[in-house]
């Protein structure tokens, strides 16, 4: 099975070979490295930008304005903050020009904790991103979705922000990407650059197929009856794990992988809450003005009379940073036991 990094690479290859992507660029995105997580290794149109996040976003806007398709990378989301007003402009250009100028561009960036990356390699960006009007924001949790969401992002005529969890970059799923060889080693031999004697190396891409995950559609990763847990990206796996564990005790947890932050799959969330009467929103961004709060607000407004317990948000602590020592990181973003505890509390609550 492909890792998420390999899945992204294959999606980008598909994009440049079949969907008109002409530039894939960012810091160290081109040869020889192919990105610090190797997600852009061996790609034909990948090039190294200057060390200038604002320059990268501006270039992407200009390329899109000029009529070409591009995928730009910010090396770590922690460094995307100095581009906020450019992201705002990219998102408002269509509106400000009364529909005249489209900016079909993809910006991808690794987000979140889980690799002990300390203060400047652990930031989340989902809540900030949700306030960038005019953008679509996706956050895959597994390789197949990573592939399908990237193709949808490339095809979309609007700017799309593709947030990839650093901690999931080496994560392997349990579903093959259409066209991917079943043998992991075979895939590696085809598309991973050898560590040694790599001179003149070129990837041999598998015969990949078009596979789209529509933006705005979530997925139920664990069906259940007693509580709805709405999450995305890395936290999906933690929530699934808790759901499996609690099932043994007869607590039936429904886990929704939102996959898209905006637009988001409200019909799926709503239907699930109406079924279970209980809901918990889990993500690792900081808790104050968290995207989960918006969803909790909406759940309260629209499902109030079907709810058996107060909706709850479990998120990262409201701290200036995430400390490097595991004791610090683990006490900053939700861990398995936090999720388990929160689920137990909501399930135990009686109206």
């Amino acid at each position, binding site marked *: 099975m492909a890792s998420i990094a390999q899945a992204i690479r294959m999606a980008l290859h598909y994009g440049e070979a079949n969907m008109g992507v002409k530039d894939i660029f960012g810091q160290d995105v081109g040869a020889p490295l192919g990105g610090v997580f190797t997600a852009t290794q061996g790609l034909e149109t990948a090039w190294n930008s200057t060390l200038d996040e*604002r*320059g990268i976003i501006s270039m992407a806007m*200009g390329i899109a304005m000029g009529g070409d398709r591009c995928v730009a990378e910010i090396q770590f989301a922690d460094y995307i903050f100095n581009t906020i007003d450019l992201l705002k402009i990219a998102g408002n250009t269509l*509106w*400000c020009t*009364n529909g005249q100028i489209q900016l079909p561009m993809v910006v991808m960036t690794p987000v979140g904790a889980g690799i002990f990356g300390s203060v400047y390699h652990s930031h989340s960006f989902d809540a900030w991103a949700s306030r960038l*009007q005019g953008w679509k924001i996706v956050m895959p949790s597994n390789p197949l979705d990573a592939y399908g969401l990237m193709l949808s992002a490339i095809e979309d005529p609007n700017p799309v922000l593709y947030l990839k969890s650093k901690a999931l970059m080496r994560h392997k799923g349990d579903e093959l990407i259409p066209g991917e060889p079943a043998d992991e080693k075979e895939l590696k031999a085809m598309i991973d650059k050898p560590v040694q004697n790599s001179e003149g190396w070129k990837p041999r891409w598998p015969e990949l197929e078009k596979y789209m995950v529509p933006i705005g559609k979530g997925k139920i990763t664990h069906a259940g009856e007693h509580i709805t847990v709405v999450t995305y990206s890395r936290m999906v796996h933690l929530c699934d794990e808790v759901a499996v564990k609690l099932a043994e005790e007869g607590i039936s947890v429904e886990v929704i992988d939102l996959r898209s932050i905006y*637009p*988001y799959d409200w019909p799926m969330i709503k239907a699930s809450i109406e079924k279970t009467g209980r809901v918990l929103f889990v993500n690792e961004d900081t808790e104050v003005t968290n995207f989960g709060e918006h969803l909790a607000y909406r759940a309260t407004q629209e499902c109030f009379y079907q709810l058996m317990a107060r909706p709850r948000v479990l998120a990262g602590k409201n701290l200036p940073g995430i400390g490097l020592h595991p004791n610090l990181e683990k006490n900053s973003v939700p861990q398995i036991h936090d999720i388990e505890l929160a689920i137990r509390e909501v399930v135990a609550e009686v109206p």
Partner: protein
Amino acid sequence: MSKKTTVKAGGKAAAGKTTKKAAKPAAKSTVKASKKATAPAKKKQSFGGLSEEILLRMHNLMVKSRVLEERLIKIYKAGEAYFWIGGPGEEAWGVALGMLARKGSGPENDWLHLHYRCTPTMVALGMDMIDSIRLMMNRATDPSTGGRNFSSHYCFPQWNVAPVTSPLEVQYPIACGTAHVQKRAGKGAISIVTGGDAGTAEGDFASCLILASRKGQELPMLITVQNNGYGISTPYEGQHGETNIADRAAAFNIRSRVINGNDPIETYLALKEEMEYIRKTGKPSFIEAKVTRLYGHSSADGANKKPHLFDPVLTFEKNLIDAGILDAKAAKKIWENYEAEGVSAQEQARQEPVPTPESVWDHVYVNSENADWRKF
């Protein structure tokens, strides 16, 4: 003709090489009316060899732009608009730029990344007065923004005119993106970017110089700064240590020059030469144009005429009349005709519809795809 100041550092040396007509590129760069600058150019030869047709066209467009800008200010002062900002005083520079740009859409034509003082360029490209007035009066018929944005925030995709953005200087590195696309298309088209002197303190200006000049990956760009000596109320000395802003381009091996942007002839010839250089070599070039800020910063500081400042339109007109190229009566007629056009355009725009409240949701996404979370 001014000489290039390529690579050679040192403002003095560079300054010495500008023409005698060029305003002194010393730190104090507000261009005042001086005897030298207003001295009548009687001989036809002193018009740089430009044809009478070009000269008269230039004059005509400069007048049109001035009349339009003054109309916009009147609309603001009459309470029919919320805010005015624009480019009266920049006609000599802006008109020449608009006349020389390769106009059209697609990567085979020039891209223009303008700032908010570029009405003269838009007029020279062929924008109708009424379209500027519709923008000023926030009509639904405003072709640039549909009534959503400030005056002079033009957007004309049919001429590759990128939307003017309120945040200063972001247009500079965005222009690198369109230049990159043009370079790939290989049709000799260039990206032109304009902006103010104070804005060059923003990092995006440096981003642009870096992206445009990387060795072997140079971009076909005309990077320009209109130096009117002020950022709102902060004078040039308040933020600049460099003698000329153009000197900064030299540090990146970008060919650069300082010109008197109040002189339409010098401007036209310099722009023509630099554009030809960029089209031929695919490399960037930099022009710093010294211009007049004739009506102050914007309506925020009153938008009143500063009569002591050099007026490029009146000076050029006088020179043409003195040289016998333009007839004084004909000149007067041009002003009157445009004045009448402005008045009737305002009257027409007044009758036109304004944006509806519901239209706030239009164009958040392409094809007005649902953007309202209440409807997900």
